[in-house]
């Protein structure tokens, strides 16, 4: 033994070293993974598709909810006034003035949320291609249905994400558009074309009701882009009376709509423009005004509980107020009265108003009137006897309150309320401008 060890000690040491290197490398990689995390590649199965779709829908709720309130602030829908109790966000104040700076953190947050939403939707589509290619998926009817849902939701949301970019984000004050995955700047029209590409790909995977939703979104995009014939064609296939809205869904325990947290009972930074109170004053059937009072740093409804507020949510307009503070009289919105009130993204009423607008633009006032009255009837409002393009604009103002459409309406109808150099879009902020090599100023 002694002689053997002495004679071969170098060889023994080298063998130990080699064995040690080999076994250490394997051993350290055999660790137990975290329980709260799952590797991306383990999600490529049909059993995970619902989980992934829900993740995309969650991201949609966050991105759309954030876009809708900032768009409301930039438009003449919401106002910022420091006299509102606890309204202190300077980023919102600058957005309201149409002068958001490139370091506006609120807009940066929105860009992060839309980016995350777009990433989840796009990667779901790529993942669905991999899942669909698996033989066990092809041969299983249940799996095929899941795959259909996966493709549909992926393409739907990839389209909506690009629509959010095109409609709300801009490189310059009057130049809409954004970037995708550090791409060069994509103008709004091109971005909307990308959105339409995804939405059209969603249609083959859609149910009849889902297809109507997709067509309404397509119609909205064409309308924004001023392509009225295409908008007419899509809207004709769009949502009908009785169709449920496509909406962001929230819960009090997880995430709440920003229209509740930052323009409602949460901590109101924005409050509705006073004209909405005037709308109701002119026609009390437009909505309810719940009495409110300042309690500490928030405004609370007086005499009405959560359930009563929720019951009134189907109204076109609801407000809490009036509150008077240092010469300011204001209301809070109450169409999203509770933390779990869903946030409407698109409705059959919007589709009807698109048809009305398109008819009006075509000189077909009778159709326009019919569509406007269809909408008014749904809200138990008296029928109009005549309509014009301008009255459709006002109907849209009331009907689409809180859905982020006012910003593009003001642009489309050339009814901008601020100065000539103010922003029509929320700016691409510094994080993207500095970290995207295609956008960086040399």
């Amino acid at each position, binding site marked *: 033994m002694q002689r053997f*060890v002495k004679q071969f000690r170098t060889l023994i040491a080298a063998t*130990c070293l080699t064995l040690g*290197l080999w076994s250490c490398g394997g*051993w350290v990689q055999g660790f137990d993974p975290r329980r*709260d995390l799952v590797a991306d590649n383990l999600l490529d199965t049909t059993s*995970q598709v619902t989980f992934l779709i829900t993740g995309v829908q969650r991201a949609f*709720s966050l991105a759309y909810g954030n876009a809708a309130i900032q768009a409301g602030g930039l438009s003449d829908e919401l106002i910022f006034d420091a006299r509102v109790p606890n309204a202190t966000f300077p980023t919102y104040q600058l957005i309201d003035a149409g002068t958001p700076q490139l370091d506006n953190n609120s807009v940066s947050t929105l860009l992060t949320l839309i980016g995350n939403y777009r990433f989840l939707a796009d990667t779901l589509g790529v993942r669905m291609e991999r899942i669909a290619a698996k033989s066990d998926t092809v041969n299983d009817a249940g799996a095929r249905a899941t795959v259909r849902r996966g493709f549909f939701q992926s393409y739907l949301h990839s389209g909506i994400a690009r629509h959010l970019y095109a409609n709300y984000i801009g490189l310059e004050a009057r130049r809409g558009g954004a*970037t995708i995955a550090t791409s060069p700047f994509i103008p709004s029209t091109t971005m909307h074309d990308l959105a339409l590409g995804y939405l059209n790909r969603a249609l083959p995977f859609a149910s009849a009701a889902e297809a109507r939703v997709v067509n309404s979104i397509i119609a909205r995009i064409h309308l924004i882009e001023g392509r009225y014939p295409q908008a007419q064609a899509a809207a004709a296939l769009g949502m009908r009376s009785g169709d449920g809205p496509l909406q*962001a869904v929230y819960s009090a325990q997880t995430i709440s709509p920003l229209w509740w947290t930052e323009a409602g009972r949460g901590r109101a930074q924005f409050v509705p423009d006073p004209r909405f109170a005037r709308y109701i004053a002119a026609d009390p059937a437009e909505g309810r005004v719940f009495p409110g009072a300042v309690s500490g740093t928030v405004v609370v409804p007086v005499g009405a509980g959560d359930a009563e507020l929720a019951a009134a949510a189907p109204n076109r307009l609801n407000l809490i107020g009036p509150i008077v503070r240092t010469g300011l009289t204001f209301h809070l919105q109450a169409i999203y009265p509770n933390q779990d009130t869903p946030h409407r993204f698109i409705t059959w009423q919007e589709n009807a108003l698109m048809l009305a607008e398109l008819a009006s633009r075509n000189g077909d006032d009778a159709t326009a009137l019919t569509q406007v009255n269809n909408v008014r009837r749904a809200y138990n409002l008296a029928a109009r006897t005549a309509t014009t393009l301008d009255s459709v604009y006002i109907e849209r103002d009331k009907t689409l309150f809180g859905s982020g459409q006012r910003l593009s309406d003001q642009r489309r109808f050339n009814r901008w309320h601020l100065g000539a150099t103010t922003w029509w879009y929320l700016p691409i902020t510094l994080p993207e401008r500095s*970290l995207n090599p295609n956008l960086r100023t040399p």
Partner: protein
Amino acid sequence: MRSKLLLVLALLIGSCGAVFAQGVIRGKVTDKKTGETLVGVRVTATSQEDKKPVGAISNKEGDFQVQNLKNGKYTLLVSYVGYKSGESTVTVDGGATVTANFQLVLDVKGLDEVVVTGVASRTQKAVSEVAVARVNASELTDKMGYTSTGQLLSGKVAGVTITPASGTVGGGLRFNVRSGAGLFGGSPVIFIDGVRVGGGNVGTGTSGPGVGGQQVSELADLNPADIENIEILKGAAASALYGTSGQNGVVLIKTKRGRGLGNNELTINYQGIYGFNTPSRAITEEMAVSYKEANAIYARAPFAPGNKTPFEGTAPIIQHGVNLQGNSGIFNYYLGFEDRNEKGIVQQNELRRQSFRLNLDAVTSRDFSISGSVNYVNNFITRPQNDNNVLGWLGNTMLFSPFIADAAANGGGPIPRAFGTYQFTDSLGIALAENAANTRRLIASSEIKYAPSWLPGLNLRAVVGYDNNTIRFETLFPATQFYSGIQSGNRSIFTLSNERLNVDASANYEAKNVFIEGLSSNTTLGMQAFNTITRTNFIDAQRFGTDLVRDIGSGGATTFSISEFFENRRDAGIFLRQEFSYNQIVSLSLAARNDFASSLSPDASAIFYPQASTMLRIDKLGVLPEVVNLLKVRAAYGETGSLPGVIDAQRLLFTTGQSGFGPGGIVQVLGNPSVVPERIREIELGFEFELDNAYGGEFTYIIGNAVNSLINVQRAPSTGLNGVAGGVRRNLGSIDQWGFESSLYARAIQSTDYELTFNVIFNYFDNVVRSIGNTDEGAPAFLQDGFNRQYIIPGQRRSQFIGPKPVTPRFNAAGYYDYVNGPVMDTARANGVLYTPTGALIGSPIGGSAPLYTGSFSINFRFLRDFTLYALAEFGIGGNVYNGTRQFHTNPTYANNITFNRLANQLGLARGQAGAQAGVSNIPRYADVAPLTPNTPEYQRAAEAFMRQDWISVGRGNVANFTESANWARLRELSLRFNATRAFNDVGIGVKNLAFTLTGTNLFLLTNYTGVEVEINGNPGSIVSQSQDFLTLQQARALNFMISLGF
């Protein structure tokens, strides 16, 4: 079965070794210089045939006698604390008595002691190629009563400072080893008898419920009295072979082992400690107008004025410790038990610790030995709510002034505020809030050594270590009291469990006279593997309705919070070291380690760490006078690293996000598969000298850097991955570090009755951050703490305080100080003012946090043979502390700073004065302060002084105004010990040891810092935020009486 048990018992406690009464070795041991006899010297005779040792102790005449020796050759080893060991070979033949006398030489600094110099290398300190540090803990615990291991090390080791988070008993610690290794510093890795243990801080954020910035130190679980010594490998040059885990140095704790060496010896020791914690500083009116209320919360000293009974209101310390140290047959054993109960200086701070330790060593054959250790600890620590916390005593006595402004507006003087200073939380509410951390911890190890007789020089060693601690945090805010942010009571339970397993194995082969006579070769091949699992779970509920039902399940369902965490990490490394030494005059070592870690991608390149070191004993070259008994120069280079987090290298990980749609998949982690560990390099150059075996010193210059430091890099928002987990970890940072550590020591007097030794440590360390990456690549322009006070930013020291500086006050149209708009700030780049790449003002560098110069001075004076006076003073110079408490005092809402208040009165800004403005009108009027006239030089001077009290924001200069130079010197330890052993033995009461000791800790502080506690470290685990004092509890002054009894 019974007979087997008896056999086992016999093996454990019986005398199994057959003894054959034959030869005797006897002799006398004396001091070579003085000729005085040495008492209690341990003499070990080891048979060269069967390697079995037999021992004896010299008596009061210095005589020893080793009996019952078989015929044969014996190696005699004589060892005595403070002396170099003596060794000789004697032959016992025919039962004769052999005489062997020894004259021992002083070894003031333990040059002959074998010390650890690396992962598997040990050598005598005199020939070590790297700077080594050993703290003889057992000597210290004889002198002082320590609560934790951290206190044991404080001020004892050159290059190492230990800063407590606060004065909370059992609280967290920050280790500063040299300049802090990597970009973000950190704590050293700690081994106890070969077990790699956790030594970090738990109890805030993800590691338990916080009570402000305080945490609980895992080191508070160890019984200091169990520790024999602590060795520290301080930098990469020494710790490279520990691999990626050794980036901040390695602390090796060795606990006490059994003694006796086959003689069936048994020593039973008892140590009792009885003492008190008291505040080390009184709060003065200059520190807070509310000083009376602030002082009233602290425990009182025994016999303090006002005590109804002598010990009323005191914070007692009571400790009982018993250990058995001895030998039985083939076993050496150490059995230790400790029960310590210590109360902190404010209510709700208490430590109750029971520790049990069993160390066993067995020599089963002449080739083979095994040893094992088991330590079980039950540690119960309750913490008060301090540090940036309005639910505790400090937040309710150190923020609000006890006076209000109103009536004083008419010049009537301040009037008391309703409810005094308790404006946030009622004193009963504070008293009833509970926060407890109960640790149950098992630390166990077993070690096997094999030195085959058939191949002399080969030594095989394997250690398996296990550290399992479970900490259960419980908090309670009773429903019947009001607490801000809590609805009808709150209770939470957080359980943190750490399971750590390490296996270390090495083979060492030493060959003498290779190639040439006198040249020895030492080759070591080894491996280390470490597996750690962390589990936590947390539940929290509010809305209890009553304080009588506290079951967490009875809390309100809508406020439940539940979470769980699990993480497993594995590290491993294999190393090879080759050393050549020529007659211990000159030596050269080359080594390398290859590391593996589960926190790196399998595709990551190998982690390879080289190390090289050398030393030359000039004193052995024969060119120096004989008085120089040591002059050694040494140089070493090493590299080590700092690992990324476990998931940092994993490309894309999803988790569950809840919404109204239900649970859905969201991206949680975007990793970087190519991330590698931060690499730390260090060159160490040093020399050591000793004259006349009595005076000596050492000096080590260190220069190094860290590169590839891990920085979180943001992706562009359009990628969809911006903001995910704070960014992607990339190897972009770097920092340069340099400095020196030095010590001088002297044994000025040495005689039977008197002995005087001094020890001075002086360190200087600095660093500068070189890079944290390019902002165009998504790297941040700087890293900062949550309050924008301290930065990691290129060109500056780590954790530099930075902020705009006020230059000149503004005045309003009426000529009064313009409090609304604040002072004019320094924005001139020419003055060194820093800006971000996008042009935003950051501010002027104000100073670093950690002291540039640290050190200590200690003295040990034994007089009249049996009395010993010991003192240790520490200092820190060149550091800064942010006085957040003073900042809040100058908030007019609190108006708790007398200087600020009086200045405001002078400037006419106080309540009802002509210049009162929004923001300052809450300041009370002082009838004895005459207002100054605006637009006069006196008013200008007062305005400039007031400007430097502006508390409002970073933009108004609060970083510059409240970051204070914080130099300090502290009398850390003082003890007077009377060794009564001789006196008792002289009167016929036979004891091995009997001593009475009086000790004091933190007895005196000298500082220019205006706050209460200068040695501050609000958050010991924070990367950037250091030395920020906000309602931080001061360190306690501890007074102890100790009895040590051994028989």
